[in-house]
């Protein structure tokens, strides 16, 4: 069984890495090494069990005296609010949408992984752990990932008990499918709406706690600042998006479950409102941002149709189970109706290059190869600019083999959606797909307890960096969000809260007053610049820079150029922005301005991080680091570390803290799907 050797977790299998290159010199300062202060040791399979026992308990009678703020109501935030409410803590939940049920977890289509081994096809906690570490290109923390795999089975139990209507077999038992780059069937699904069903489950559990009085829900509220008192996170400043009122909310602990920052690219599969502001404000208050350049580009999205585009729509990659991906062999065929291109003139390039995985190679590889085909001039679909950005995903063979009804039952809503957006019928014409930004593996740095380097600030779900390394496997985001929210956070946050309730503070505390004033000043600043350009236009321009230079393929020169461009853009933004309306009413332009301001600063840090990491790993492909046949080349000796960036001040440079990734259960290997 070559390739899957497991170790007991008792001895380090690699040493710390030593970086030789220094591409980002001049853009950053090197800080001290970072160590997870609560990293567990011992046999890997016992680490979480041991830690749950070691972590202190909070007396049930004390829990209602402890205030917990949770920002975000997706899987990670909603599940945590429900669970901590059930436990009896006093929870305040915040979301920018009009209802917690709308958080963007809802849009996840394909499924959720769990090591149930219901198919008896060789799956296990260890295999899910192994696949996730390997899929993440050995850039995640193994203890965290093992825990994720370990609690995965509990998630399914919990969701079924809540009434999540997963797909079932005729005997009434749960169905599974194989998904996105793995060879076992471990993915649970609810047609193409798995995220929706899981989120509604968490939402309902949370609303039940609202009725019970343990959770207070603040909708249409946006967190604009973190309150830090004596080094501890003690609350947030939020804006009521309806009245415009700036509110102070104090607590014993703050949880950010605010999702990812893919909208830094303007066009992504994220929701229109998805933003980095909560995380970025925390970063500016001292929380480290880890691996910000790790971006997942999803291979199966509907291609861009023109300049008006406001977002991109994903087609679940479960379609890759039945769809065959191809481009014409000859450039001159690219304009033809694909049905007129004979079999021998089609290049099923994934099957050709990766015969054992074929169309099921991991996302990063599928995306990059689609880009390569289009760069070679063999892309299909309409010209956008002077370029065709699309490849075919053809269900023709599957329809012949399984029948139209079977395909319809599996993918009905996806295919309807495709037809609605493109005006083309996917049962008749091969679908066109192209990669789009979908997920970010980077996020706020957290320790094994999901606590950031600011005590009392916990970060869960996509907003943290910890579990997916440099690339996330399909059906793992839902797993991580719910693992963090239902099972991890409630068991770690209690160890922190065992020291509470903390010293009472009120709104007159100088740190609170200062935080509040900074928010009010910033709002007034946006309204007073009175320039000529909308926040949206800056966002689009930033997105173009990021996609061009910090997207699927990055180069040293390109990244340097991008940093300069972003700095110019930032200066222009702060002198030429135009926001109409007032601060004391619902004002979507004002909301947008704040988000774009933070995206601009994040974009610069992403480019610096990408520039520093002179290796190709997972979703991060550096052109200077590839094998002779064009595959990604990692440099474990130099970069097997988490890059945790400390805010260096508005005029200063970010400070890089490296956390070495030392494996004890799995040996690092170059990925090969050939």
């Amino acid at each position, binding site marked *: 069984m070559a390739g899957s050797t497991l170790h007991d977790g008792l001895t380090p299998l690699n040493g710390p890495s030593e970086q030789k290159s220094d591409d980002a010199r001049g853009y950053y300062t090197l800080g001290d090494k970072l160590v997870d202060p609560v990293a567990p040791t011992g046999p890997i399979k016992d680490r979480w069990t041991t830690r749950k026992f070691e972590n202190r308990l909070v007396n049930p009678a004390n829990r209602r005296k402890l205030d917990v703020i949770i920002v975000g109501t997706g899987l990670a935030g909603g599940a945590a609010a429900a669970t901590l409410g059930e436990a009896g803590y006093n929870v305040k939940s915040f979301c920018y949408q009009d209802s917690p049920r709308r958080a963007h977890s809802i849009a996840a289509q394909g499924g959720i992984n769990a090591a149930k081994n219901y198919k008896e096809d060789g799956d296990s906690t260890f295999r899910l752990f192994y696949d996730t570490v390997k899929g993440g290109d050995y850039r995640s923390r193994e203890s965290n990932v093992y825990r994720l795999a370990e609690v995965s089975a509990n998630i399914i139990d919990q969701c079924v008990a809540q009434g999540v*209507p997963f797909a079932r077999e005729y005997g009434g038992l749960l169905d599974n499918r194989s998904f996105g780059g793995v060879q076992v069937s471990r993915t649970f699904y609810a047609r193409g709406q798995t995220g929706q069903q899981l989120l509604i489950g968490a939402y309902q559990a949370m609303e039940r706690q609202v009725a019970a009085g343990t959770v207070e829900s603040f909708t249409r509220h946006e967190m604009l600042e973190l309150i830090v008192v004596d080094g501890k996170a003690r609350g947030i400043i939020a804006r009521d998006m309806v009245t415009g009122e700036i509110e102070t909310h104090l607590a014993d602990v703050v949880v950010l479950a605010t999702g990812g920052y893919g909208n830094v690219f303007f066009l992504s599969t994220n929701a229109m409102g998805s933003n980095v502001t909560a995380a970025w404000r925390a970063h500016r208050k001292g929380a480290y941002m880890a691996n910000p350049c790790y971006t997942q580009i999803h291979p199966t999205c509907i291609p861009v149709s023109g300049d008006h585009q406001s977002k991109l729509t994903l087609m679940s990659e479960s379609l890759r189970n039945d769809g065959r991906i191809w481009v014409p062999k000859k450039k001159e065929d690219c304009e033809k109706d694909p049905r007129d291109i004979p079999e021998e003139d089609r290049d099923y390039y994934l099957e050709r290059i990766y015969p054992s995985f074929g169309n099921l190679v991991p996302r990063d590889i599928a995306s990059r190869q689609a880009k390569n085909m289009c760069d070679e001039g063999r892309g299909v679909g309409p010209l956008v600019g002077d370029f065709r950005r699309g490849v075919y995903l053809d269900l023709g063979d599957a329809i012949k083999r399984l029948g139209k009804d079977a395909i319809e039952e599996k993918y009905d809503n996806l295919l309807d959606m495709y037809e609605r957006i493109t005006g083309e019928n996917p049962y008749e014409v091969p679908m066109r797909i192209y990669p789009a930004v979908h997920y970010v593996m980077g996020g706020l740095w957290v320790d094994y307890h999901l606590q950031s380097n600011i005590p009392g600030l916990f970060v869960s779900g996509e907003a943290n960096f910890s579990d997916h390394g440099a690339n996330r496997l399909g059906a793992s985001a839902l797993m991580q969000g719910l693992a963090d929210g239902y099972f991890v956070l409630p068991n770690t946050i209690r160890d922190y809260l065992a020291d509470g309730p903390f010293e009472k503070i009120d709104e007159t505390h100088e740190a609170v007053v200062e935080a509040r004033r900074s928010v009010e000043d910033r709002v007034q600043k946006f309204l007073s610049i009175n320039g000529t350009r909308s926040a949206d236009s800056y966002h689009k321009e930033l997105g173009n820079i990021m996609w061009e230079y910090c997207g699927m393929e990055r180069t040293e020169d390109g990244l340097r150029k991008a940093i300069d461009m972003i700095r110019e853009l930032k200066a222009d933004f702060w002198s030429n922005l135009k926001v109409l309306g007032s601060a004391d009413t619902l004002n979507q332009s004002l909301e947008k301005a704040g988000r774009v301001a933070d995206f601009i600063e994040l974009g610069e840090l992403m480019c610096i991080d990408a520039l520093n990491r002179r290796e190709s790993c997972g979703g991060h492909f550096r052109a200077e680091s590839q094998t002779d046949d064009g595959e990604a080349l990692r440099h474990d000796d130099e970069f097997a570390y988490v890059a945790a960036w400390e805010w260096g001040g508005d005029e200063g440079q970010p400070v890089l803290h490296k956390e070495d990734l030392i494996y004890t259960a799995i040996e690092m290997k170059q990925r090969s799907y050939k």
Partner: protein
Amino acid sequence: MNLTLKIWRQAGPNDKGGLHTYQVADISADMSFLEMLDVLNEQLNEKGEEPVAFDSDCREGICGMCSLMINGEAHGPEVTTTCQLHMRSFKDGDTITIEPWRAEPFPVVKDLIVDRSAFDRIIQSGGFISANTGSAPEANSVPAPRDKAMRAFNVATCIGCGACVAACPNGSASLFVGAKITHLGELPQGQPERWSRVVDMVGQHDHEGFGGCTNIGECAAACPKEIPLDVISQLNKDLRTALKNGH
């Protein structure tokens, strides 16, 4: 294409509000309806007029945040959400009237945005299964018949957008409530609370000021997720059984 838009503008909940007319030019058929409104807003911003406030988030038809009465139809002429409606459903020279959801329990917040928190309160009243984290049995220990699980799924696809209420002449949310009653009532896990759930949810529905159902069927016709009308029959049947048994 070039279009004339008549859009409801209302500065706040207490403002009177009214229709304002705007022109947009060079709209592509591949744009979504909301992207067309983005173009208008960019144009208004340039002219120094405050952009039109409207709700949207995922823009892929699943979060339920977008709304809009378009020419008197909830989510417009196609069976989908407004964000998935594309301009190829319109033609050059069209006049399009755009209004917010109209229902007393959905007060206007600003322009095209309404307050749908009544739906959250209906869910709080009983739209859940009480299963604390950690207490769940092994997932396959309770098989669920496939046909019932399929029906549960089909109605669980409700996105809580409120189109059913906006379309109903009575302003009833019976389709919304019926979908949740049916979703949870079809599953073995939903049985213990089945009867109290229907009584509590219907009680909250009426308390919020939603109207009663008189079998008109506009709700199911407007529903972007095609929730069938028979969930209201299920709702009534469950309610009758519950009341008969003293719940």
